[in-house]
């Protein structure tokens, strides 16, 4: 029989209410585990890729480029350059003699042809060890072509996806502050929304109705020029703390732009975000408009939500997502539609978030960091979950177990942010939890 848990992982699993001990996280995966985690490169790539008028060139062997080709569904209202896959496709001789020449030639070719506003050049594990001087090549091309050419040093072995977010933030930081356009009074930047399924556009609409000017969107539907001017905003509104907090902190230190952490997922959190922004500007008018939006949206949405709640009451959910901050919003949103969370986990969580989760959840809820398929299946069965919320690798497992599934990751097809998103979420959970297919599995 397979032993249930990897020894040495006990501290990465807790049951809420049964222990006062904090969960252990931010620990590298054990060698030999079927970890669901990705790498540094992956983290930096998913964060930067939605900047659609920039060039994204992957310096490395072909695979790293293929697996990140148009993978995220981050929508652009303009350019589509980001949906191509550009790679130096390193060969054996490049490994021996170095790939700098190839990188240089590729960059020149690309920039000449597409005239991008900036170029991001990603290094992968291989480049990390063959020792190409990415920085020097980028600098040289940048000078020759007079656009920012930014090295993204992301060899995968340097950590987890989360570390890749930081690398991405550092790359973005080199752009921020390189332009000086004046912008309207109530201006914010939206950080950490990637416009999956057009979510950002929902948010833009709310802010527009409030009378807030959105300066830069980082990075959903992102544009280089706006990012260069991002330091001009009065406030950074940061969602999904995992990926963009680092940039927010950098911008606070360097340009004195304060930041605010929000979640756009779920009605409470969405409303809090709007109120929070209004409060920040200390403007009565903004506050009034915010509450009008909230009222309007609640009136529109609550009756429908109530119907879903009645039907879903008593259903149980298991959550396994990339970051722990998202898990918190999910727990609350599920509660709103009558669904109880019985298992919560994330690939790369922070201890503060896990602590909050412990307080938030009912007694006996299992909380786990960096889990694997065997653990997850065991927990789900033990807790008799009906629905699983996770990413691409969890979906087929959930189905095999006869569970409903909702993708709250890159591959979601419906916008799940904002008020409209809550409706979509409820609809999706309902459709999957109540699907007649599950009655044929027994």
């Amino acid at each position, binding site marked *: 029989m397979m032993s249930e848990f990897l020894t040495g992982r006990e501290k990465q699993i807790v049951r809420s209410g049964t222990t006062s001990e904090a969960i252990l996280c931010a620990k590298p995966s054990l060698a030999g585990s079927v970890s669901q985690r990705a790498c540094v490169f992956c983290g930096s790539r998913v964060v930067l890729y939605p900047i659609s008028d920039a060039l994204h060139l992957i310096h490395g062997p072909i695979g790293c480029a293929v697996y990140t080709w148009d993978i995220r569904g981050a929508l652009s209202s303009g350019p589509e350059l980001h949906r191509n896959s550009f790679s130096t496709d390193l060969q054996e001789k*490049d490994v021996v003699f170095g790939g700098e020449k190839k990188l240089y*030639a590729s960059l020149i070719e690309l920039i000449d042809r597409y005239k991008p506003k900036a170029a991001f050049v990603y290094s992968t594990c291989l480049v990390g060890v063959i020792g190409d001087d990415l920085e020097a090549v980028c600098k040289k091309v940048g000078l020759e072509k007079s656009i920012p050419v930014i090295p993204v040093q992301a060899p995968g072995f340097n950590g987890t996806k989360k570390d890749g977010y930081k690398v991405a933030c550092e790359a973005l930081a080199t752009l921020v502050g390189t332009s000086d356009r004046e912008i309207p009074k109530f201006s914010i930047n939206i950080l950490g929304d990637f416009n999956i399924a057009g979510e950002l556009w929902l948010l833009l609409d709310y802010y527009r109705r409030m009378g807030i000017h959105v300066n830069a969107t980082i990075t959903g539907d992102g544009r280089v020029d706006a990012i260069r001017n991002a330091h001009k905003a009065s406030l950074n509104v940061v969602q999904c703390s995992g990926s963009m907090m680092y940039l927010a902190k950098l911008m606070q230190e360097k340009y004195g732009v304060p930041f605010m952490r929000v979640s756009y997922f779920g009605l409470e959190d969405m409303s809090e975000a709007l109120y929070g922004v209004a409060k920040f500007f200390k403007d009565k008018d903004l506050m009034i408009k915010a509450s009008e939006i909230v009222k309007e949206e609640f009136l529109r949405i609550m009756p429908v939500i109530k119907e879903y709640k009645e039907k879903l009451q008593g259903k149980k959910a298991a959550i396994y997502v990339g970051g722990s901050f998202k898990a918190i919003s999910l727990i609350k949103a599920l509660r709103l539609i009558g669904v109880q969370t019985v298992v919560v986990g994330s690939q790369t969580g922070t201890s503060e978030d896990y602590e909050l989760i412990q307080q938030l959840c009912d007694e006996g809820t299992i909380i786990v960091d960096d889990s694997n398929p065997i653990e997850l299946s065991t927990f789900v069965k033990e807790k008799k979950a009906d629905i699983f919320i996770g990413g691409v690798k969890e979906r*087929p497992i959930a189905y095999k177990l006869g569970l409903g599934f909702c993708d709250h990751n890159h591959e979601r097809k419906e916008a799940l942010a904002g008020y409209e998103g809550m409706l979509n979420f409820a609809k999706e959970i309902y459709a999957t939890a109540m699907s007649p297919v599950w009655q044929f599995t027994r």
Partner: protein
Amino acid sequence: MLLRHTTDKIIEREALTINPAKTCQPVGAMYAALGIHGCLPHSHGSQGCCSYHRSALTRHYKEPVMAATSSFTEGTSVFGGQANLLQAIETIFTVYNPDVIAVHTTCLSETIGDDVNQICQKARTEGYVPEGKFVIHCNTPSYVGSHVTGYANMVTSMVKHFATVSTTPKNQINLVAGWCEPSDMREMKRISTQMGIKTVMFPDTSDVLDTPLTGKHEFYPSGGVTIPELVSTGDSKFTLALGSYSSEDAATLLETKCKVKFSVLDLPIGLQATDKYVMALSRASKMPVPDSITADRGRLVDMIADMHQYLYNKRVALFGDPDTLVPLTEFLLSMDMKPVYIVSGTPGKKFETAMTNLLLKKVPEAKFKNGQRADMFLLHQWIKQEPVDLLIGNSYGKYIARDENIPLVRVGFPILDRIGHSHFPIVGYQGGMGLIIKILNAILDKEDRECAEEKVELTM
């Protein structure tokens, strides 16, 4: 236009690859390893690669795909991965308890110079591998070859580790399956069973990546070639290697190691390739071709005859892997279609030779290229210069298909946006019929939708 950046003028590129028509070795090795029963593939490198390869296979099959990783850290990249691999082997056998661990390398572990062979040997001698369990390995640096190479390397390592000659020869034929779908492997076996021939197919991903929903997650599904079967391949009468890129190396090694003679065939896609497959089976086993198979063949020919007026002269662009593209091109030609553009990111002379032989006389204007910079961008540029009626390839074709309004028939890896490839074969006579149906549906649906109103035909 999604690919508004593609120009119709061909620009010579010296370094850059745009929108590749291949991926990297390890995913092939992982796929092949899943075709061994009770096997856990293991990626010796950082966890990102493993995660990507699992995701790619998961998206293609909509099935759980399990594989472990050595989880390299920065330190590992300096000091080497021996400790990680040994620890991994120990962990895997205690926690996941597979029959076999199939280790493949990544660019990183190759470049830092880990000697996986020696590490696996050490694992065996130092007791990391329990009695009756196995660790096999192959090298899969992605800066050489493509995903197809990785597949071939893992298949070859199956022979290297297991095939043995005993004292009693077996009345069975080895089928080395080139890279194809579980449905195709199932169909090739069905044909040999229909002929009354005992075969050992390896790898065999049927019943591994097309499993039924039962309410249970089987970590090791019921399918896959078993270890005793793999061992017995050394005693077989003959080997058929199906697809030279992905299976010839294994067959060659089997001959060297166990003196089992072999012949290399194309994957049986289309009429002629299936004819050759059936004949080769018959020859090797001295079994006659049963009437039921002859009837299947007749039905395929009948179908082509019925519809040949709609197939005639249609210009087709194809991309994917050589082992699929070669028989597919042959099949299109046998239906009087015109394969005009063909690209494959997988390098190697054999592709060029095969395509030249097939196309030189029949479609002299055809353009084909493989290896470096034979990518979707090039294919798209060709199409922009002179359009085609049909595109055949994996899901990455959908951008071109949309931009240029060309019907796309999905064949190959990966298919991320449609289903059916793991359930319905394209090999064999029946698979050939399935393929024609897809091709015609795609072409005729478009015509019905777009032709002038007065030209809409009820009967076709």
